[in-house]
């Protein structure tokens, strides 16, 4: 049953990162990089937790998370789109703002347990040996993350809005020439991205750990930004990176539980080491998929 536990853990653990990758993919597709994804996620975690704690409704919690993450992403958008601030610097600041703000506001809630979302086994499917329980005995946010992948693909690649969003990330002048408003499209992409990322934070707080701890995202947002590259800026490959990260996390927890004699500090590095390896082997080819407007930002940051 080790495999089942590992798989189940990978999904449980990876889902928050998966939302982060989805969110950041949408953001980067419109030509904005939001290093503050970590901030959006942690805000989402606290918002979902507090709301669920008081209202006893996880659904309202998720909604609050999306609003919270959206507001923080909007701040990023105003700064980098409206004021043309440096995207990398602004993103980092947004991240620390999110972390600091939640630490302060969440003081009284630390380590208080809540019910939150529970596992909902899907009939028949959850009965499949080995993978059934892992894949189909999960919380609702995991299932949503399964569906979100084709949904985002549809939005980005099959609709006119998606076409315009992606075009904004490639060449805003072209979009402008067709009478669309690239600035508005960017705002949409960044805020939507922040909202999706924040739901990842919500999953972490109310579905995975059922508690609030300060800085509980622990770098997942940053990892998500890195894994967007691994996924080639495409939602359909987001799961690969997310579950590599989640799998490594689950593995280290399982090893710790079994009392393996490796320092816990080393074990806790596992997910990050795995991610670095994944990036090492995948990065070379991915640069070409990078939206052109994003390249400009990274190049201009490197030059200035």
């Amino acid at each position: 049953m080790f495999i089942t536990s590992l798989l189940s853990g990978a999904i449980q653990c990876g889902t928050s990162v998966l939302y982060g990758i989805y969110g950041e993919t949408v953001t980067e597709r419109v030509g904005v990089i939001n290093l503050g994804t970590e901030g959006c996620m942690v805000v989402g975690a606290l918002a979902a937790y507090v709301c669920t704690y008081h209202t006893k409704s996880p659904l309202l919690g998720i909604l609050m998370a999306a609003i919270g993450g959206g507001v923080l992403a909007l701040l990023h958008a105003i700064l980098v789109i409206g004021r043309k601030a440096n995207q990398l610097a602004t993103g980092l600041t947004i991240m620390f703002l999110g972390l600091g703000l939640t630490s302060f506001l969440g003081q009284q809630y630390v380590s208080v347990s809540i019910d939150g979302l529970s596992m909902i086994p899907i009939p028949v499917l959850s009965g499949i040996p080995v993978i059934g329980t892992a894949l189909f005995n999960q919380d609702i946010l995991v299932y949503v993350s399964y569906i979100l992948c084709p949904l985002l693909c549809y939005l980005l690649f099959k609709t006119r809005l998606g076409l315009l969003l992606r075009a904004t990330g490639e060449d805003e002048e072209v979009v402008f020439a067709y009478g669309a408003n690239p600035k508005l499209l960017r705002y949409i992409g960044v805020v939507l991205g922040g909202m999706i990322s924040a739901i990842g934070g919500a999953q972490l707080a109310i579905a995975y750990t059922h508690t609030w701890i300060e800085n509980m995202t622990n770098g997942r947002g940053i990892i998500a930004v890195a894994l967007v590259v691994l996924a080639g800026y495409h939602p359909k490959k987001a799961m690969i990176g997310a579950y590599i990260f989640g799998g490594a996390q689950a593995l280290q927890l399982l090893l710790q539980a079994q009392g393996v004699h490796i320092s816990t500090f080393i074990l806790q590095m596992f997910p990050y080491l795995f991610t670095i390896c994944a990036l090492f082997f995948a990065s070379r080819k991915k640069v070409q998929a990078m939206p052109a407007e994003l390249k400009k930002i990274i190049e201009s940051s490197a030059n200035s």
Partner: protein
Amino acid sequence: MKINKFNPIIKTNQLKIRFGDFVANQNINLSVYAGQIQSIVGENGAGKSTLMKMLYGTYKPTSGEILVDRERVHMTPQIAMRLGIGMVFQDFRIIPAFTAFENIMMALPKEKRKRPKEEIKKEICEISQKYKIPVDPDMLVGQMDLGQRQRVEIIKVLMMGKMRVLIFDEPTSVLTQQEAQEFIKMLQSMRDDGYAILLITHKLHEVMACSDVITVLRHGEIVEKEEKENGYDQERLISKMMGGEVTIHTDYEDQKKVFEKEEVLLEGKDMSIYNAQHRELIRHGNLTMKAGEIIGLAGISGRGQRELLETLFGVNVLKMGQLTIDGKDMTKSSIRDRIEAGMALVSEDPKRDNVVAGMKIYEHFALNGPEISYKKVGINWKDLTDKMDTSKAVKELGVPEKTRELATLSGGNIQRCMLARAVMKQPKILLASYPSRGLDVGTVEMVHQTLVELRNQGCSILLVSEDLEELLSVSDSIVVISGDTLTEKLDPKTTSALEIGDLMIGGKEHER
């Protein structure tokens, strides 16, 4: 179609535009009629593009008015589109990461968007058949060559609405000679379908045959207008373009100093040239460069010119084959070794390859130019600038004020700076890509003169150009990239542009 002389689609009255202190256009009175090809010719910087961008609404005129169907219009690109005015930009408004179809989809007007995909694809096919501009709708634009991209752009513009006026900004600059001829035919059939065509170009000879009206722009004003029915006076047109100072085409043959010793400076044997995607572009290519020789390299753009030059210069490693420079095996040597051996490269895109943003022109000359001397602890700048001031190449090629930032100059100006820099090094081997691209007739002449002088001093030059006339007039021999092979050296005196064109195209089909 009969041209309705009394009802122009577009008419401008005293159009004027100013950027700061600089007047880009003034006193522009222009009429555009259906079923007519009107060519706007002029030197670089004559204000052609600016004028077209005003007609399309990208720029707002400072004063004057634009009338469409006799009504005054405050033009914007959206209004232009609605009124049936489309523009094919020089740098294309299409997204390389998208397929042709996606690019076209994005440009469709509201009422067309809802239609099923198949119907839209069908319309694309119909247009491409009608005007013989084949495109593959599902191909990524990024994988297309410039000619294909232009065709996508044209179809896109045609589908953007009920187009009546089509503006083309320097359309032939990205095309080979054959493609340009096809392009002209396409324009003619569009004219016959009743479109009004505005064609901006600085290549007068290309448009003489097809234009119904030729308008010459100089220093932002219309200085000459000739109509086909009255016959064109080519010399007059050229002199109007150049402002009277026409240089007569030089026959470089007379200036040739014959080099008897036939010293081989560079020899590449059995070279395989790959692009960044590891595709083999040239297979088993052989190239011998002798002292005092200009070799013209002809070929369809993107068939390995860039990669060949970069491999010879050492930017890319030669994986197969052998390269000897000055008798020494240099197959694996570094760029630095090759520079020390007297090699210089003028890249096809210096803006990308050579320009350091924020650095002045003379600083670029210090990076890789004439030898620099040191005074106490630093570079002796005065010595360098003195050298630049006294350099014939710098003067003749018209290098702008040396304290200007290189990055702020136009592509053609950057190119001439890079050429002047390479010439100042007195290279033994010069690899020059498109040294005259984007320059006006007068400067092109100076570029050729400079190359010939360098040759006469014993330099061996590999000249890449898309302009076959240029290659034929300047080169001592011509090598063609035909499919994936390099041809033997051809004698420009006995080879016609058409034969070379056939080799360029023939090789392409052979490969398929």
